[in-house]
Every structure is written in C-alpha cells, then in structure tokens.
C-alpha cells in the first residue's frame, strides 16, 4: 500500500500579500456593527494574539464604554488578547482596536509576546521543555 505523495516547498523571500482589512467598503451588516463597537479606525497597536494585557487602574474612568470597562475588569490579572476576545465574544481585530484606545489612555499595559526569531533563544526553549515535562 502506497500513501499519496507530497512535494516539499521552500521559504519564500516575500510572504504572500495579506488581504486588506477594508472595513469601510464592506457592506455586510455584521462587520458594520462591530465597526461601531470599535470606534473610528485609527492606527492599531501592534498586538499579538498572545500579548498579555494587564490593567493599570482599578476602576474604569467615567468616559469608558461598557466594552472598555469589561476589558479592564477582565485583565485585573494578566490575560492574553486571545482570551479577552474569547471572554468578550468579540473578534480579535475589534479587541485590538479597543485595547489601542486603552493603551493610549494608560488604562492597561501590554507585555510583548515571545516571537520566533531566526536564532531562537535556547534558554527559553529549555524552560518550556521543563515546564511541559511537569504536566
């Protein structure tokens, strides 16, 4: 019995072009509603799915929207952007827009993720290995 056959590919110099997040022209109702939740389109903070967000203040300011207030409550202890998106049932992109406002207002702090590098950090990988072995 012979399994089907694949052909290996090699790394590309330039990653394939990413689709534009062109929400303004989108006519579907759902993204429009989300667009309102997220406010006007500004520059988004560079947030990863696993950027950890931590509240810097205990109570939301009076100007905070319900979404801002909910985010602030959730990240009293550090929580990833992915978790915030899951608990709030809002798409990742919408949460990053909300968090961009909150970072600018110094309501929350972002702790940058560990990302893959050309030459990975060996001590980090060892720490992860040891952590997994304890599972």
């Amino acid at each position, binding site marked *: 019995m012979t*399994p089907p056959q694949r052909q290996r590919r090699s*790394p590309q110099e330039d*990653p394939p072009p990413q*689709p534009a997040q062109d929400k303004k022209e989108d006519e*579907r109702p759902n993204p429009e509603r989300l667009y309102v939740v997220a406010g006007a389109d500004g520059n988004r903070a560079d947030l990863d799915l696993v950027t950890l967000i931590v509240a810097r203040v205990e109570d939301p300011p009076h100007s905070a929207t319900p979404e801002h207030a909910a985010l602030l409550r959730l990240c009293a*202890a550090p929580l990833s952007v*992915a978790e915030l998106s*899951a608990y709030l049932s809002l798409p990742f992109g919408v949460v990053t827009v909300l968090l961009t406002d909150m970072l600018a207002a110094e309501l929350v702090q972002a702790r940058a993720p560990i990302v*893959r590098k050309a030459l990975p950090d060996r001590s980090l990988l060892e720490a992860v*290995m040891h952590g997994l072995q304890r599972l």
Partner: protein
Amino acid sequence: MDFKGSETIPGPRTEDQLPQTAEAAAKIVIVGGFGVGKTTMVGSVSEIKPLTTEETMTQAGVGVDDNFGSASKTATTVAMDFGRIKITEQLVLYLFGTPGQERFWFLWNGLFEGALGAVVLVDTRRLEVSFDVMGRLEERGVPFVVAVNTFPDAPRYPFADLRTALDLSDDVPIMDCDVRRRASSRDVLITLMRFLHSLAMTGSRT
C-alpha cells in the same frame, strides 16, 4: 472576590488567573485536516478549558471558487480554539488549534507570524489533506513536527514511507500520538521544543 467578580461577563475562574508576575507568552499552532484531532489535542494538554477566538476578515477572492462572476470580496470568520499552559511564574504557552477551512487560516495576520513552531497532525487515512498546510508552513519558514494521530482503523505505514510520502527532510521529527491522552500530546510538544532547540544549536533555519 470583590464585586468585580459579579459582573455579567464571565472571566477566567479564580484558579485560572495568571499571576501578576506573568511577563510574556509564546504560542504554538496545531494544524491539520478536518477532524484530525486538533481541538482534542488542545483540550488534552491545556490547563484551562479551551476557549475560542475569532477574526472577521474581508478578502479579495483568494482561493474562493464558489462565487464566480459576483463581486470578488467575501467576509470570512475564522475561529481558533486555544488552550494555555503556565510554564513558569513568568512564562505562559498558548496552543492554537485551527478548526474549519484551512485555506483561511493563513489569511489571519499574526497567527503563524511569531509562533515558535507548529504541530502538523496527520491521519493516515487522509494524508493528502495536510499537504497544502505543510507547504504553507515551509513557505513561511515556520518549523514543524509531524504527529500521526493513531486512529484504530487507519492504515499503518512505516515512518520511512510516511517521511517519503510527506517529503520530510531527515531532521523533521515524526511520531505517533494519541491526542486524547495528555501525556501523548505533551510528548509531541516536547518533541517540537527539542526540534526547535536543535535548530537553535545548528542555526540552520531562518
């Protein structure tokens, strides 16, 4: 708990909260064809009940073949199941599984970018459903290991044959796994970390 815990939006359970000392997180992505066990694997190693995040994206007709002639723009929701493992008081590892149509995963900016590596889960009954995903990981330079989820009625091939069929280079680890078992899923992740470590030693990967 103070009054904050009584709000209507449920957050993590108290025992699931990360310590304030958590400084940084890393992520691993688990990919594979439909029904191959990605979500099961996330659930078996995660310390929290798996959660789902999603992203809505508009795309200009990339690989979409079911709307000939209409405006070539579609909104797609891509959902990701994920779990979490606290590695140390400072370090957290997130595992993202990828349900749904694989042709959309790679439209999600930042899902694979920055991931330490990936696990490609394969089912020997449908080996070819993983081919495209593996190619895309290679194109993006995301290192991966291959885990064969051992379904009882799936054909068993020697690893050498699978390696040839999957066109894996000699250094890419391939192993059997039972994704329902935590120890087995954990061993796959440890193998991935060892592989990444070996790449770091040789510095061969860009």
